[in-house]
C-alpha cells in the first residue's frame, strides 16, 4: 500500500518537470532541452583545452571546484564556429551521473510544450536528425527538441565518418 503511495509521489515530481523545455538559440534556429536534465546556466569561463579529444569538445572548466567538460553545440551540429561573446552561455546538464556543459549562443526561456504540440522529426538527412527527438510548435515558432543521450553518446558515427 505504502509502495504505491511512494511511486505516486515520484510521478508527481516528474510531472511538474515534464513537458517543460529550456530553449536556446544557435545560429538561426531555436532548440529546446528537457529541464529535468539542466542543473544550471553560467556565463562563459576560461576553458582549459584537453588534447586528443574531438574538436567539438572544447575542454574542461572549473565549476566551483568540480571539473566539467564542455561541448560546443555549434561544432557538434557541424555549423560554423562563432566567437564567444558576453551573451554566450554554458548550460550544465547532468545525464547518467556525468555532467557536461553545452556552449550555446544565447539562452531564451523555459516553456511548457504539451505532448500534443510535439511531432516526430522528418527523415531529411541522417546526420542531423540523430539528435532531434521531436519538433515542438509554440505560438507559430518551431523549436527543435534535443535528445541529450544521443548528443553525448553518438561517437560511433563519428568514428565511422572519420574512416
Amino acid at each position, binding site marked *: 500500500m505504502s509502495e504505491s503511495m511512494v511511486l505516486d509521489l515520484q510521478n508527481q515530481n516528474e510531472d511538474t518537470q515534464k513537458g517543460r523545455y529550456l530553449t536556446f538559440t544557435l545560429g538561426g534556429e531555436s532548440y529546446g532541452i528537457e529541464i529535468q536534465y539542466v542543473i544550471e546556466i553560467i556565463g562563459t569561463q576560461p576553458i*582549459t583545452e584537453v588534447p586528443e579529444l574531438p574538436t567539438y569538445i572544447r575542454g574542461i572548466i572549473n565549476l*566551483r571546484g568540480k571539473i566539467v567538460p564542455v561541448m560546443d553545440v555549434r561544432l557538434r551540429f557541424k555549423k560554423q564556429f562563432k566567437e564567444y561573446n558576453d551573451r554566450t552561455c554554458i548550460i550544465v546538464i547532468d545525464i547518467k551521473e556525468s*555532467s557536461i556543459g553545452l556552449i550555446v549562443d544565447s539562452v531564451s526561456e523555459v516553456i511548457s510544450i504539451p505532448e500534443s504540440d510535439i511531432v516526430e522529426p522528418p527523415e531529411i538527412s541522417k546526420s542531423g536528425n540523430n539528435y532531434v527527438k521531436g519538433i515542438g510548435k509554440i505560438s507559430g515558432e518551431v523549436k527543435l527538441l534535443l535528445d541529450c543521450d544521443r548528443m553525448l553518446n553518438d561517437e560511433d558515427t563519428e568514428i565511422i565518418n572519420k574512416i
Partner: protein
Amino acid sequence: MAEQFSNEPMLDIYIFESTQNIEQLELLILETEKTGYTPAAINEIFRIMHTIKGSSAMMLFNNISNLSHNLEDVFYYLREKKPQNIDYSTLSDLVLECVDFIKVELYKIKNGDSANGDASGLAESIAKFLVQLKQNGQSESENTIEKSGTSQSPVFYISKDKTKVTMGKNTFKAVIFFEDGCEMENIRAYAVLNNMKDFADNVSCFPEKIIESDSSLNEIRKNGFKIFFRTDRSFDGVKDFFQHVAFLRDIELIEINQDNNPDSFESSKSPILESITLSVSDKTENNPVIVHQTKAIDEKASEPDIQLNTVQNIISVNVAKLDKLMDLVGEMVIAEAMVTQNPDILALEHEGFLKASRQLRKITNELQDTVMSIRMVPLITTFQKMHRIVRDMCKKLGKDVQLTLIGEETEVDKNIIEHISDPIMHLVRNSLDHGIESEGERIKKGKPPKGMVTLEATNAGSDVLIIIKDDGRGLNKEILLSKAKENHLLSRPEEEMTDREIYNLIFLPGFSTKDNVTEFSGRGVGMDVVTRNIETVGGSVFVESTEGLGTTIILKIPLTLAIIDGMNVRVGNSCYTIPITDIRESFIPYSTELITDPDGNEMIIVREQCYPILRLYEYFEVTSDVTNFEEGILVMVEQDGKTICLFADELLGQQQVVVKALPSYIKNKRKIHSLAGCTILGDGSISLIVDIGGFINHKAQANGMKHHLESG
C-alpha cells in the same frame, strides 16, 4: 520489495557495525589465546555476541542471530559457572569458526546476495562443546542431569535476573505448531524455550533433544512442540507471549493443576521429573553463591582494558562528505587568495589589513592540511589482520612464528589501504610457507626455534615504506635460475643477471619453486598479484635476501593518491603540471647538442647519453610563440628506466597540488594516454597533470607505427 526499501539505510549501518564487532571479536580471541580468558575478556566477548545477535535478529538474518545466540550461551555459562578445566584451544577454534561463518554471511549481504548459510553444523558443535563443558564442570546439578541420560542443558537456564527460584503458581502445558514450510522448526523451538526462561521455570519439553537430532524436526512438524512449564504469569499473559512467536500456526495452551502433573506427561518423562525436583533444590543452595561471584566479576570488569577498546573515540563519516569538504576547502583557499591578493586593496597598503590577511592565510593553510589528513587512516587494522593469518598458518604448518608489528600508527590514504591489504597478506603467507623453516631445521642451523616475521611501516619522504622481513631460508639463486630456465622465463643468459634481477624472477606470473600446489602457495600467482596491486596505487616492490638468513620485501607506496608535488610549466597559454618525482633535471639546451635522425625525431646528448625530445606544444596541439629551443626549457623526465626530454615554454614553479580525475565523460570518450588527471591552481585555472609513463608508451607506439607505415 517494501522490505528492501525499509532495510536499505539500516543495512549499511548494520554491515558496518557488525564488521567492526566481528573484527574486534577476532582480535579479542587472538589476544586471549596468549593471556588466557580473563573475566573482562569473557564479558567483552559476551557483549559482542549479544550485540551481533540483537542486530542480526532485527535485520531478520536468523542464521547469524541463532549462531551468536549459541555462542552467547557458552560464554554465559563460562561467566556464571566458571568451570575449571576448559579446553581453551578448542573453544578458540570454535569461536573463530563462527567468526568466519559470520564474515562470509556479512560478505554475502554486502554483495546483495541472501545470507543463506547453514549454521546448524556449527550450532551442533557448539552445543556439544557446551555439554562437554558442563560434564567437566563443577556443579552437581549438571551431573544429575547426565545421570538421567538426557541433555536438557538449555532447559535449566537461570537468567541473571532471578536470584531466587520461585515455585511458580501456575503450571501450563503448551503445544506449539509452526507454519508449514517455515523450516528450522527445531531451532525456532529452541528459541522459544530460551525466551521463556525469564518468566518460567521447571521447563521441560518434548522432543527433548531439540538441536542435536534431526528427528526432532520431524517430530515437531508432525505433532507440534510440547512444552511443560511453571510460571507466575496468568493464562492470558502466557497466551500473549506465545502469540508473539514467529511463524506460529497454532498454539494449544492448557493450564494444569498440581495433581495433574504426572498424568499429562508421557511416561518417559517421569524419571526426568525426579531429576527436576532434585536439581531445583540444589540450585537454591548454589544460587546465593553464584550471585556473590557475579558481583565480584562485575567489579573486576570495570577495570579498563585498553586493548579491548580500540574503537572508542572514532566516528564514521560518509566518504562523499569528506570529498565535498575537501572541495570546499580548496575553493576557500582560492577565494581567500583572490581577496588578499587583490591589486587594488594591496595598493592601499593598509597595515591592519595586511596583518589580518596574514593571519587568515595561516589559518586557511592549517585548515587545508587538517582536511587533507582526514582521509589518512592508520595501518593498524590491516596489520592486525595478519595476526590471525599467522596463527592459522602456524597451526596448520606446525611452525612456531612470532609476528612483530612496528610503526602501525603510520597513516596512508584510505584508497590505498584497500589495495595493499591483499599483497601484505600474500607476502606474510609466503614468508611463513616458503621462508621460515621447520623447528627442527632451525635448531640444526643454530637459529632460535621460534621464527620471526616483522611487519614494519615508516615514512620516507613522500612515500610510505612497508617492510616484510623474515629470518627464514632466504632466496636461493640457483633454484630460482633453474626453475626459470625450466619454464623458459629467462630473458637474458644467466651469467649476465644481477642478484636483484634474479630475485625479481619471483614476480613473474606463473613462477613458483614449489613442486606441488598446497593450500597456501605453489601456483605461482601470488607475487604477480602483489606487483599488480602495488602498481595500481603507483608504488613499487623491492626484494632483498640473504641465503640462510632471511628475506626482506619492501613495498614503496606514495603517501596519498590525492596530492602530488608538481612542477608547473607553461606551454603557450596553457599550464601543465609534471609530477616532481619523475623530473630528473631541467635545462636550456644549446642548439649544438641537438640531433635529428632520419625519421625526423629530435634528440639531445647530455653527458654522453642520448635522449629523445618531445615538443609539448606540438604534442598537445597548443599554439605557442616559443619554438626555438633556446627560448624555452627542456625538462628531463624518467619513468620505468626510460627517459625523455619535454620541451616547454617556461617553468612556473613548484606546487603541491590536489589531483582530480578527469571527468568520466571524457574518460569514456577516449582514453587519453598522456594525462593522469587535472588540478585546480591557486587562481582558479585548471592545469593538466602529465602522465610520463603514458607519454613514453604513446610515443614509442607512435614511432613504431610510423616505421610500420613507412616500411609497409
